[in-house]
């Protein structure tokens, strides 16, 4: 079981490496959104600091969402998805591997980069730490929930928009608790509560999501 999850992760990571775009795309988009804002809004430190958690989390959310349509689309187009569906192990396991690979490629870089970008917004050290931590805990949920949406809209007319429509409502709690955690730190309250809720969302998202995703994929292949 572990072996086949490893095989999926390995393959997806290698593909991402080969294409490179996937890794950098999310990251680059994140940087762009975050850096364009001070440009459009003006550079007052106080205002920027208050904006920071919101802007960073919204940017992370968008960056993850944008990479979702390709999660299964490439495999669908070139016939690999059929092969995966016909593999002897449960499809949900393979999906689990793909979710993890997606997070490693699209989520983890954001976590690592966020503190650096946070400095631009003049955030204090503890807020930076909580920012990174909240992203670390929260982004896997984005990948997990997103996988369901990506599978449901696979090969469907108007897939991209529909995907956002399906996925965004489910992302809102993550956004609220994530940005809330940083906000709470900024205003001197503890971020504990927000973070544990975020953790619950992630556990639910990552471990529950592969099943409906696998079912949706089978439907898409019919």
């Amino acid at each position, binding site marked *: 079981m572990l072996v086949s999850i490893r095989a999926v992760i390995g393959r997806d990571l290698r593909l991402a490496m080969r294409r490179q775009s996937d890794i950098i795309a999310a990251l680059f988009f994140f940087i762009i959104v975050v850096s364009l804002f001070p440009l459009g809004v003006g550079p007052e430190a106080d205002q920027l600091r208050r904006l920071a958690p919101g802007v960073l989390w919204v940017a992370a959310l968008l960056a993850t969402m944008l990479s979702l349509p390709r999660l299964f689309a490439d495999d669908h187009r070139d016939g690999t998805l059929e092969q995966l569906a016909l593999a002897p192990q449960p499809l949900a396991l393979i999906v689990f591997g793909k979710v993890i690979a997606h997070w490693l490629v699209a989520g983890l870089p954001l976590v690592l980069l966020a503190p650096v970008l946070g400095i631009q917004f003049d955030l204090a050290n503890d807020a930076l730490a909580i920012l990174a931590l909240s992203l670390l805990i929260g982004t896997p949920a984005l990948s997990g929930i997103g996988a369901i949406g990506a599978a449901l809209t696979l090969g469907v007319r*108007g897939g991209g928009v529909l995907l956002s429509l*399906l996925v965004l409502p489910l992302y809102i709690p993550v956004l609220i608790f994530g940005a809330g955690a940083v906000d709470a730190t900024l205003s001197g309250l503890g971020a504990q509560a927000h973070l544990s809720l975020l953790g619950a969302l992630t556990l639910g998202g990552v471990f529950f999501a592969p099943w409906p995703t696998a079912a949706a994929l089978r439907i898409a292949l019919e």
Partner: protein
Amino acid sequence: MSERVINWFKYASPQTFYPLAGKLIPWFWALAAIFGLAGLTIGFLLAPTDEQQGEGYRIIFLHVPASWMSMFIYLVMAFWAGTGLAFNTRLSGMMASALAPTGALFAFLSLWTGALWGKPMWGTWWVWDARLTSELILLFLYIGFIALQAAIDDPRRADKAGAILALVGVVNVPIIYFSVKWWNTLHQGASVSLTKAPSMAAMMLWGMILCALGCWMYSIAVALMRVRTIMLERERHTDWVRSVLGEKE
């Protein structure tokens, strides 16, 4: 499949359900009108003023039924979707699709009346409070369900894909319901519960319950109307649709 199961599924076949639904619809309209009028009479003409909230509280007779229905319809929709996925019955998917727009309507009304209530009571149209947010998510789930089904040409595939979404979204309903308990928020807690004695005046309670019954009957009537249309559309190649439409000529 055993005999018994087939019998059980008899009314699950569109061609027997279609005329049955047609006969039931007027009755549900009548009930909806009776309950609705009674509830509104009590709520808007007879019920006394609330001490804290003044007359504004009367929105409760719209807000609470709409909110309840939005959640309840989602559960029923998910139930049908789930049975459709499990047993592959034709009717289930149609019922789920028929319920969604009405559910979306009530979710929207819940938000609308809630917002209009919030302005005088809390001083704001909207806060990102757990209950309000989760109710908004419910509306998005309905819209997502409708949009997803509309985007897929093959109705069987559309049913299945919709069913998965509906089932995934079910987690949201308990969150809406218990959010006031789990997080302390601006929104009011439950005042009607099965275990405790009701904490509001009997008159108000009755008004609310009658209005809710009215909405319930309305939902059934509308859903039946819609499911009949969907049946005609989806089963247009079958003989029974031809004969139904032929007779009407």
